[in-house]
């Protein structure tokens, strides 16, 4: 018995060391991403301006060829035909090298952090998400994991690396300093297999919604940038350097739509799973507890966003604002409700 307790304490300690190590690795990754952006700024590509002002030919990828006839694609009416930016490295050799180093470090950081989460789970002998500390470390692990999965699938998401690692560092910083809770067992209300189902999907939804929100935010910047050029304006030097390397507004918009649309059914499932659990634990499946309320608000806000995309006059920027509001609701549900509002959702040691 005591031996087991000592083992658990050792594991908990190992977990902490791993989490701190992952922070160190992410910090290195952060600097590598910065280097990628800095070296990339020396590129003189300026594709967006070229495409929008009609000079020169934009260097876009060729038509889809799968052997046999050649397919020619055309963007839908009403969207700007702007090629994606070259990415943070700006197509430069050194930028690209740093970018690759950054990605490799991100992979290492992810593996170390994931081991930290697993060690934590083993030390407490349960799912590692019963308090805000555990929730936060799992959340950032999943966010980085989702990013790496998208990269591995060959999606064009490298532009997101710097923003992602920055927030992961923030998240882990807050987790280890103010949210830290010693590893321990669960209060009886959390003893349920629904903990695995409901909370794991909630974390996945949040992490992936977060990637969508980054895409949306960058879409807004990039869209203003393209608008300005299309109107014949000259954007600032910084905007030219940074925004020009991002994917086109249309691509960013589509990226965040796909992400949000893909996660929305899972979020719906999360809420329903929560309701079923509440039915078992508290004797009612819906009681407008603050956490339930904010999950509902988040859900309706995302539904609003999806509707906006299908409503003329609401596409584009307005829909993007709705998406950001929706993610803001998710964040508030996670931090705000836990910290400012007391309800039935007890997280030990906020």
């Amino acid at each position, binding site marked *: 018995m005591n031996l087991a307790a000592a083992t658990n304490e050792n594991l908990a300690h190992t977990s902490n060391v791993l989490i701190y190590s992952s922070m160190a690795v992410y910090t290195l990754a952060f600097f590598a991403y910065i280097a990628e952006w800095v070296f990339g700024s020396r590129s003189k590509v300026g594709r967006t301006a070229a495409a929008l002002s009609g000079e020169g030919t934009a260097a876009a990828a060729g038509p889809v060829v799968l052997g046999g006839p050649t*397919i*020619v694609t*055309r963007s839908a009416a009403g969207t700007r035909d702007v090629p994606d930016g070259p990415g943070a490295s700006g197509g430069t050799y050194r930028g690209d090298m740093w970018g690759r180093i950054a990605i490799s470090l991100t992979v290492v950081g992810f593996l170390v952090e994931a081991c930290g989460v697993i060690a934590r789970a083993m030390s407490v002998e349960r799912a590692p998400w019963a308090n805000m500390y555990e929730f936060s470390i799992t959340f950032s692990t999943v966010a980085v994991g989702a990013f790496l999965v998208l990269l591995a699938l060959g999606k064009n998401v490298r532009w997101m690396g710097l923003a992602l690692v920055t927030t992961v560092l923030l998240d882990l910083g807050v987790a280890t300093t103010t949210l830290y809770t010693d590893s321990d067992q669960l*209060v009886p209300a959390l003893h349920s297999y629904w903990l695995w189902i409901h909370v794991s999907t909630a974390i996945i939804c949040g992490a992936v919604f977060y990637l969508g929100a980054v895409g949306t935010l960058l879409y807004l910047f990039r869209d203003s940038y393209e608008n300005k050029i299309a109107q014949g304006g000259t954007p600032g030097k910084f905007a030219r350097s940074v925004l020009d390397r991002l994917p086109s507004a249309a691509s960013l918009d589509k990226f965040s739509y796909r992400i949000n649309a893909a996660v929305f059914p899972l979020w719906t499932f999360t809420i329903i799973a929560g309701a079923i659990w509440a039915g078992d634990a508290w004797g009612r499946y819906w009681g*407008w507890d603050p956490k339930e309320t904010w999950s509902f608000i988040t859900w309706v806000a995302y539904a609003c966003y999806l509707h906006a995309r299908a409503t003329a006059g609401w596409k584009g920027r307005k829909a993007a604002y709705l998406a950001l509001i929706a993610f803001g609701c998710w964040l508030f549900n996670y931090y705000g409700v836990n910290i400012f509002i007391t309800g039935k959702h007890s997280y030990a040691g906020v």
Partner: protein
Amino acid sequence: MSKLNSTDGRAAARAAEEERDGELGAAGARLSTAPREERPDAATETGGVPAMGVVGWVRWFWRQLTSMRVALILLFLLSLGAIPGSLIPQTGADELKVQTFKAAHTTVTPIYEKLQLFDVYSSVWFSAIYILLFVSLIGCIVPRTLQFVGQLRGRPPGAPKRLDRLPAYTTWRTGATPEEVHGAALSLLRRRRFRSHVTGSAVAAEKGYLREAGNLIFHVALIVMLVAFAAGQLFKSEGGKLIVEGDGFSNTLPQYDDFRSGSLYDTDELEPFSFTLDKFVSTYERTGPQRGTARTFEAHVTYARGADGEEKKDVITVNDPLEVDGTKVYVISHGYAPVVTVKDGSGKQIFKGAVPLLPRDANITSTGAIKVMDGYRDKDGERDQLGFQAFFVPTFAGAGNGTMLSQFPAPDNPVLALNALHGSLGVDSGLPQNVYQLDTTKLKPFKDADGNDLKQRLAVGDTMNLPDGAGSVTFEGVEEWASFQISKQPASGWALTGAVAAIAGLAGSLFIQRRRVWVRAVRGTDGVTVVEMAGLGRSESAKLPEELSALATALYDRAPGVLDHDPTATDPGPDVPAAASAEGAEK
């Protein structure tokens, strides 16, 4: 500035959309059953006011209500309206908190009450939002369903004149005859489960109807869920009962400590069953920073269905209620019930029982009252009543350690402290009495030898003697009690069905792309057949060109390109940009 831009952008987008509509004609129409947008500026041309009578107005109002724009606004209002309920205490969730809030904020309370902010989710304004939303939803679903059924019975629309204007396009020249190409295309598309047919010189095909079906199912499922939820509220029943170990409960109205039910509930519907609390087991963390945190709560019960059904045993835990014929029994909280015996001056035992006390803190420091109403006579043989104010700590810090606050929630060192009073308990006054409190208005404290109020701390087995031969109280031991919630919530099966259907419908709606493919084959003047293929989706998708490519490759195998073909024939012509869109660039 940016606002201006986006307005321009929108105008451009709209113009382009109109251009596309004009170009594609019927081919692009009805790829979705979404209501056609009312152009906001079209309304302003006539001043936004319909120039018709009452019927016109009603019609106008209905069209507005069922438009996507208003649905959007109502959705937004719904999420906005839900916010105050999470910040202000709600009567439905925590009555006590509401009282505390009202006492602390006397200025805003009347305003909040006017605005029904203590009952947001049943308030008039919140109900108005969601009822309007659901009327809008029904008004939206019905025509969309009819339209969809029409689409299912009809056939995919014919090819637009210029296929090369579509988002994905390809062409080649083949030696096969147009009829052979049509036949090959039909069988190919049908094998891939496209609905297809030949119209004019082209094969028209469509796939992905499940997207629309899923979307409709999702919206219908929302209505099912709402109705189930409302029915659940109207027909539900819910009551609480505190039971000390060894005691029982049978499901009839008088047995409840408190009982609430929906407005359409009939108490005859109480499911006949009974149960006894055999034992309550609770354990707590003993060490570490979470010392004192509860680890297990288990109520061991014996229950029986009906009036005299077979007895069965079960363990109720926090996430695992006992379910008897649709009624669920949850364990909600627990506490301690000290067992005391009270004797009168002559030594006759007049009361013996476990008295449940209410926990006041996490370590279960508890308070309550012991009331001896009948059978007690004082030393003169006069009828009197006894009352004791009881404080109980399961783990006492030790004598000299100040307060009566418990150090740990388990009964490691239980101590009961009593204040003794006598007189009238006021039970007969007809007013409802709180069993956990003494009404001291007609009670006089016993005095000790120094003239102070009589009070004493008792360990298990200790006795407190009342002065002047008034009797004694003995602390015999401790039992645990558990409080149960017994509730029946009908229609939850419907709510669950609706929820599952909603997720399935949503997945169909968001993951399936509805798209059309046309294959045109025409014999050119030189006798060689020109094949043109094009695809159109409701929204741009990287999948569309990929799928068209796969189809074209398969068709190309059956209608191979002619070797001597003119190289310019595969060039889609000057209108089509040589560069692929961003879409094509995406992997």
